[in-house]
């Protein structure tokens, strides 16, 4: 190609670049990237030992905290709001970047919510049998992704019921990128819930969960599961009167909260206004708890049918 043609090519490329919209430029500039300004915290040597110590510390904290106080997540709210579409899109971008090649969160999430500067979105793929929880504050380092499967293999909850939730917890601050397989196991926080309620039954999660979190994410928990068609709202009740409202939409419920505390009870309000609350720590339980192992099908340990109706009132 002659020099003249090469110059034409230069001009054409400049013209082509100039033809794009500049909206993205301002979006890119408006985000808070939280760049890492110091060397990574974990030295390569002794990494394994450090990881083990971090996990152990996490468990200790999980079991010792009583209520979701002293949240490290500025602006977090126990009452979710509707996020903007751009916020959901931004969160999804960061979560996709974290997931990497092989799978992308695409389409519309089954539900999304905002709590302060954090946007959460739940993406599902029933045919493939997986779901992903995306949580991000729109920065490179304020992002966590929880992935699971198994919920879809279970029978759907009844109209007034909640499906047994899956859940995950992040790791200690500064400890990114763990993968936990709760399948067939009882994670510490479910054990804590079961023991505090005196149910005496082993709650076996029905889904495999994995969670990745970046360094700015501290300890946080989430619950996600299927909700019956008559379920209007779900509220998690912690000790000392702290409550966290879940988002309920399209047959799913979801909530997340910072800190290591675990809910002691769950309140469900139906479309009629009737509210069902797990009555007290002694009698709350899951009537059909699994004995052992991971159940692919059936209703074993699936539904929170142990929740007894204790009040019938207007929605709180």
């Amino acid at each position: 190609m002659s020099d003249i043609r090469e110059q034409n090519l230069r001009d054409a490329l400049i013209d082509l670049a100039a033809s794009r919209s500049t909206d993205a430029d301002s979006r890119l500039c408006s985000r808070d990237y939280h760049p890492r300004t110091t060397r990574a915290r974990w030295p390569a040597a002794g990494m394994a030992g450090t990881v083990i110590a971090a996990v152990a510390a996490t468990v200790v904290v999980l079991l010792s905290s009583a209520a979701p106080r002293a949240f490290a997540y500025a602006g977090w709210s126990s009452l979710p709001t509707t996020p903007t579409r751009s916020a959901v899109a931004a969160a999804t971008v960061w979560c996709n970047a974290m997931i990497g090649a092989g799978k992308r969160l695409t389409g519309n999430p089954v539900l999304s919510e905002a709590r302060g500067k954090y946007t959460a979105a739940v993406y599902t793929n029933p045919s493939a049998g997986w779901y992903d929880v995306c949580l991000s504050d729109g920065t490179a380092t304020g992002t966590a992704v929880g992935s699971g499967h198994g919920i879809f293999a279970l029978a759907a909850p009844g109209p007034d019921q909640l499906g047994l939730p899956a859940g995950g917890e992040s790791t200690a601050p500064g400890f990114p990128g763990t993968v936990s397989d709760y399948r067939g196991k009882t994670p510490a926080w479910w054990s804590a819930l079961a023991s505090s309620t005196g149910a005496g039954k082993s709650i076996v999660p029905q889904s495999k969960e994995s969670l990745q979190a970046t360094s700015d994410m501290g300890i946080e928990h989430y619950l996600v599961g299927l909700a019956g068609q008559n379920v209007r709202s779900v509220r998690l009740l912690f000790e000392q009167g702290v409550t966290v409202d879940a988002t309920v939409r399209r047959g799913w419920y979801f909530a997340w909260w910072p800190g290591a505390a675990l809910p002691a009870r769950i309140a469900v309000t139906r479309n009629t206004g009737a509210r069902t609350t797990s009555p007290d720590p002694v009698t709350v339980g899951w009537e059909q708890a699994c004995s052992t192992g991971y159940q692919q099908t059936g209703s074993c340990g699936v539904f929170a049918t142990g929740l007894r109706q204790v009040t019938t009132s207007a929605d709180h």
Partner: protein
Amino acid sequence: MAGVDHSFDRFVVACSRDLMNTAYLLCLDELDAEDLVQECLMCVAKRWWRVRDMDSPRAYARRVLVNLAIDGRGRRSRRSAELAQSRWRNLDLDGEEFEPADDRAQAALESVIARAPLMAALRRLTPHQRTVIILRYFHDLSEVETARALGCRTGTVKSSTARALARLHVLIDPSDGAGRASAAPMQPGKDEP
């Protein structure tokens, strides 16, 4: 306690336009380009403590960008191809189905039509060839600088450039009948019954 470091924010403001331009030429799709730049900035942010002291953080970011584009060519090119196809279906290049509302719309349409052969031809290049062309002729990098950005040999840049220019010549040159025939499949709208 040290003050808050805003150097990365300033870097993003200074470089986002340049990175978006490059990403757009690589992806030929604005949404893909924005995704690509965000991935790039995230990578740079993770290493900012080291990148900020480099001679040219901008060059480093551009290198990350082009390598991400080449590494992720599978999923992005598929999505871009789908998007491009859907857009072409809605745009008849002869203007028979599209009635511009005014002179500005007419000018916009003509501009789109004028750029279409180049976009179609760029899509036909391999990601590596497209990247070489953009670095050499959009950024005016030398062969040595292009090789450094891509992490390859200068000879590879020379041969890739020659092959890419030859390919573009065949695809774009109006005097070459074979070129038009080759470019036609990139315009699905023209082929729709």
